[in-house]
């Protein structure tokens, strides 16, 4: 028997504790409960307010329920997120706002990864957090955009062209507007900005434009003298060439004579 029991699964014997044995149940003189038990009883006692017919009319109004429900509760986590969001706004010189259509994480992750490789950060913040972060600051106009689903890209303006190239692969992410160097730009302006050349190239172009004014003036001043000089040179060359012809005809004559 013991061997069979050893083979079977051993169940723990239940812990039995006797409460009463045969005697009568005590109701008339209940003993005082333990302090801990008494505390629990006192906490869980139901509390009933005054009956409705005794309440003044104003307390019976049902419109208060809506106003109380909408009372804003201060959430410290939301404050932390709002601070983080504002930090991102302040540290990144380029902020681009995207409208998000329905997209899988499967399709979104490669975009996120390629943006990250190019030192750009795709982040999602909700309407409430962004409004908490931006109201009162200079970014307040941005709240208008946050009505549906949206994402934000934080980065540096040098990578604007790369960003557009990466976003071409995800047609569900639509560029709406952007902030570059504290200036709010529309989508078309963003596209134009991305097509601009490098800053050094732009500076050199500016230098050449500035210089072209002066060089143009110099050229125009010298134009008449140069024309005169070129005419004179041509005249000389024409004069020289008939002398060579004369020499040639003389040599033929001398040959013929000889």
């Amino acid at each position, binding site marked *: 028997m013991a061997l069979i029991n050893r083979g079977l699964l051993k169940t723990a014997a239940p812990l039995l504790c006797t409460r009463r044995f045969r005697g009568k149940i005590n109701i008339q003189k209940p003993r005082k409960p333990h302090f801990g038990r008494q505390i629990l009883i006192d906490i869980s006692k139901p509390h009933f307010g005054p009956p409705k017919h005794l309440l003044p009319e104003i307390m019976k109004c049902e419109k208060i329920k809506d106003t109380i429900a909408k009372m804003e509760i201060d959430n410290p986590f939301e404050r932390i997120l709002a601070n983080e969001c504002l930090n991102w706004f302040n540290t990144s010189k380029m902020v681009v706002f995207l*409208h998000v259509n*329905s*997209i899988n994480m499967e399709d979104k992750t490669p975009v996120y990864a390629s943006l990250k490789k190019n030192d750009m950060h795709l982040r999602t913040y909700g309407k409430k957090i962004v409004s908490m972060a931006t109201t009162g600051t200079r970014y307040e106009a941005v709240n208008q*955009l946050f009505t*549906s689903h949206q994402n934000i890209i934080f980065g540096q303006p040098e990578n604007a062209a790369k960003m557009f190239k990466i976003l071409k692969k995800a047609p569900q992410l639509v560029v709406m507007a952007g902030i570059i160097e504290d200036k709010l730009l529309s*989508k078309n302006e963003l596209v134009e900005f991305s097509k601009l050349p490098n800053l050094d190239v732009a500076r050199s172009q500016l230098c050449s434009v500035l210089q072209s004014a002066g060089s143009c003036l110099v050229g125009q001043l010298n134009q008449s003298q140069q024309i005169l000089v070129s005419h004179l040179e041509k005249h000389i060359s024409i004069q020289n060439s008939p002398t060579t012809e004369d020499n040639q005809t003389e040599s033929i004559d001398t040959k013929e004579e000889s």
Partner: protein
Amino acid sequence: MSIPYSGTIRRSGGVVSAIAKQLRAVNLKAAKRITVKFDPFGDNVTHTRNFLHYMSSRKISLTNPNCVLKTEVVCDRSEPTVDITIVPSIAETASLKKVTFKSGNLTCLELLQLLNKHITPLAPAEQITTTISTKLEKKGKRK
């Protein structure tokens, strides 16, 4: 004195369920191209953007894989619109080439209802494909 029962037996599920019901009914087989155009800084673009978000979902795009959904962002303070170009073969029979919704004053639910009213009925009826018959059935048919 008892008053006979009046009112609904089932309660309405709210706007969200109504939108879900419309979305389940959407069939884009008649649409060749859908272009949603909006100005992001406009006041009345919330519903258009929500409509666009629903339209871009996978389920709806699977009803017609050839239908292209294009999003246009403009910055000239123009009203948001939804342009739907009908497939040419259906356009001939229905005498309807293009449908435009001016969604400045329309809610998302109304947009979907209009879509289901005008575009979904144009979808061609699904043809029952031939089922694969087993050898035994074929033998029986021959006999």
